[in-house]
């Protein structure tokens, strides 16, 4: 099995030089190295440049509405708990339009890997601020510079109770691949926020900037300490890269559903025993 297994020959609609290509490469390698099988794998995305990613793998996918990848993914999990589910989308999609789903999906803890291409900008709509855009950056809308406090996805996910929270970078292939692999193998909600340069619209957070502003999280960091993880998450310039927080053994959304108590058989394979209707109606007599 090699990269060709997931690679697909197609016109990729990203700009030349974009960090998205790096992430795609890392994903292809990570999936192959994990030996994922296409018939047990599904991608979900929203809308944006990053959200086109599933089109560029040879996989099943649901490319839905802007901001709505997570509820779709949760619905898929609810219907078929054994599908490996990867959500891949952009920062605007996930933390902006999709913010409410982000915080509440974490609370549910479905077994989903969420890969966010964080270019700190709205790429597809041509350069407006995203929730992660840093203060002061000027855009066609934020003509005087961004005023809002940037959203810190790592800190937010940890606070909400996500069981695996990490940061990667498109430019740091090896480290990021390992993080993604760990995220995919993690049972429960796993966030990997990936720094990615948008060469067309983000002239602040460039490939160079990312390279210079990243520091690898030391192995000594206690990954199961929420407060320490948060404290690390708040540190900026340099921005830590690696796994901030990881706890295991938490029940997933799908495992807490009574329908999967005895079997993980997907719902579409099941047939209702219609006697239940008779029974209910008898109660109503």
């Amino acid at each position, binding site marked *: 099995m090699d990269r060709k297994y997931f690679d697909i020959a*197609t016109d990729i*609609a990203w700009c030349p030089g974009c960090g998205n290509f790096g992430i795609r490469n890392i994903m292809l390698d990570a999936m192959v190295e994990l030996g994922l099988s*296409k*018939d*047990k*794998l*599904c991608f*979900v995305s929203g*809308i944006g440049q990053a959200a*086109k990613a*599933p*089109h560029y793998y*040879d*996989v*099943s*996918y*649901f*490319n*839905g*509405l802007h901001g*709505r990848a*997570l*509820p*779709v*993914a*949760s*619905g*898929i999990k*609810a*219907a*078929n708990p*054994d*599908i490996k589910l990867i959500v891949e989308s952009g920062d605007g999609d996930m933390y902006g339009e999709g913010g*409410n*789903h982000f*915080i*509440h999906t974490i609370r*549910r803890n479905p077994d989903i890997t969420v890969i966010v291409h964080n270019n700190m900008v709205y790429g597809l709509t041509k350069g407006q601020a995203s929730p992660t855009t840093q203060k002061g950056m000027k855009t066609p809308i934020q003509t005087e510079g961004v005023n809002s406090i940037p959203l810190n996805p790592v800190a937010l996910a940890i606070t909400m109770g996500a069981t695996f929270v990490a940061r990667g970078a498109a430019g740091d292939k090896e480290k990021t691949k390992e993080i993604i692999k760990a995220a995919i193998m993690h049972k429960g909600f796993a966030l990997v926020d990936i720094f990615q340069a948008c060469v067309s619209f983000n002239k602040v957070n460039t490939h160079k900037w990312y390279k210079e502003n990243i520091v690898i999280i030391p192995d000594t960091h206690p990954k199961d300490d929420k407060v320490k993880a948060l404290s690390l998450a708040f540190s900026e310039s340099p921005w830590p890269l690696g796994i901030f927080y990881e706890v295991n053994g938490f029940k997933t959304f799908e495992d807490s*559903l*009574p*329908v999967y108590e005895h079997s993980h058989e*997907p*719902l*579409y*394979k*099941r*047939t*209702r025993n*219609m006697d*239940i*209707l*008779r*029974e*209910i*109606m008898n109660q*109503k*007599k």
Partner: protein
Amino acid sequence: MNNTITDLTIMLAGEAGAGVQSTEAILTSAMKKAGYNVFATKEYMSRVRGGTNSTTIRISENRICNQWGAPDIFIPFDLAAYTRYKPELLEKSIVIADTKIVKASNIFHLGFNDTSLSIGNIIYASMVVAGSIAGLTGVDLEVLKSYIAKQFETKDKKIIADNIKAAEVGYEEGKKIAEQAGLKIEIKNNDYVKDDILVSGSESIALGALAGGCDAVFSYPMTPGTGVFTTLANWAKKAGVVVEQVEDEIGVINMAIGAWYAGARAIVSTSGGGFALMTEGLSLSGMTETPVVIHLAQRPGPATGLPTRTEQGDLNLALYAGHGVFARAIFAPGNLEQGYELTKYAFDVADKYQSPVIVLTDQYFTDSYYNTPGFKIYSPPEKYIVEAKEEYKRYDLKEGSLSPRSVPGFGVGRVCVDSDEHDESGRITEELNGIVLKMKNKRFGKFALLKDIALVPDLYGSDDYEILFVCWGSALTTALEAVKKIGDKVSLLHFKQVYPIAQTALNYFQKAKKIVMIENNQAYQFKNLIEHELGIKIPSTILKYNGLQFISDELYRKMKEVI
């Protein structure tokens, strides 16, 4: 005064939480067990305690499924209730109340507060009232007693005994009042009633969902859509249904679509405001050709409106919600059986036509209940899902508008679904004059397919009518009793599917000399639709829009006026 009543209407009213609801529950269950036909409908304020709510119970020897007229007996639990509903009474209506609380003339005293306190707890008041009605109507006391024994069988013996005592005292009081009032109630009971089921509109929808193979329900609570959600949640473990309360209605519809994409049959239940938030998701269902079933229980808008009241005011939204062009089907059940059958059918239509399907009800429909024969039990529904071979294409054009639908994980093929315009394999395309047009035409073709199978409206009454009353959805039962009373040459046409409209419906209109549309909204939304779809004019309407359902005799009077 001496009036023999064979069809009795009782109204109970009081603060939320004061016992109206428990009295209603005891009464209707016991009466049904005793073989009486019962119907109950409620109207209540948007608050948990206090205010003034009422429930109206009708008891009859014949099958009933609606309220005919003003109550024969009115039991206000407090003065506010008396004041609020007094104007609706007839001269012959009798009022029974605890006159220590409701100080007004012409009231028969029932000391349910003192009585229940003397038994030991104010909560027995409901039982006293229930007992009194049994006494008034001459129902066998033993029936009530055995119902109580059964109902509380898991409880302490003392509790059972106290309840029975309360019922007995009430019973005696009731008999006395009947005598004083010269009231003769003679309602025959029927054996068939005992085999009937006593279910609400919400329950009929929930049962229909189970029959339709529903295996997931996603919702965000919103009155009056919550009933279906709660009912399904209640049966979920037994029936193997996934239940998830989602963070908001946008999440709800997307989660349901995700579940359908993965092969589950999911329903969502909501009301106008929540449905409004699902608008974009509806369009996603249309574009991706992923089925979804939506139960939309209407209440008066705009915005938060009257959250616990009824209206048929969201038809336009149901018809046109969603940007862009895509097909849908909308069913609007008129009685419990239709609630069951149409919801079941909604799942099949959604699945087969890979389209959103809406079951459109309202607060009146969901909250009302009556005894009805058990619903037909079908075998498990057909599955329309195919296995994906290696070269599977989700939007294959070979079979016209309906490409075989697979789900991820079923077979080796990839199931690629896209909310952008896409090619056969589900990948984004901008081939404007090629595949784009083909896909647009493919989806547009579903309008015709759904029209082909549109359910023909039901004609009630003789074929040989001159005047045709027309209604849709929950208005059926109310309108039907009124139309029956009006007499010859008058029939009722009821639409249980409101979109698409079956073309053959036109025949019914062409035969009529006069057509009158009955709607529970201010803007005659269905009249507009019918006029346009069938190219006719409906010059006359009877509208109501104060948040309450029509009552049959009120409608009867309005019908008389217009014909």
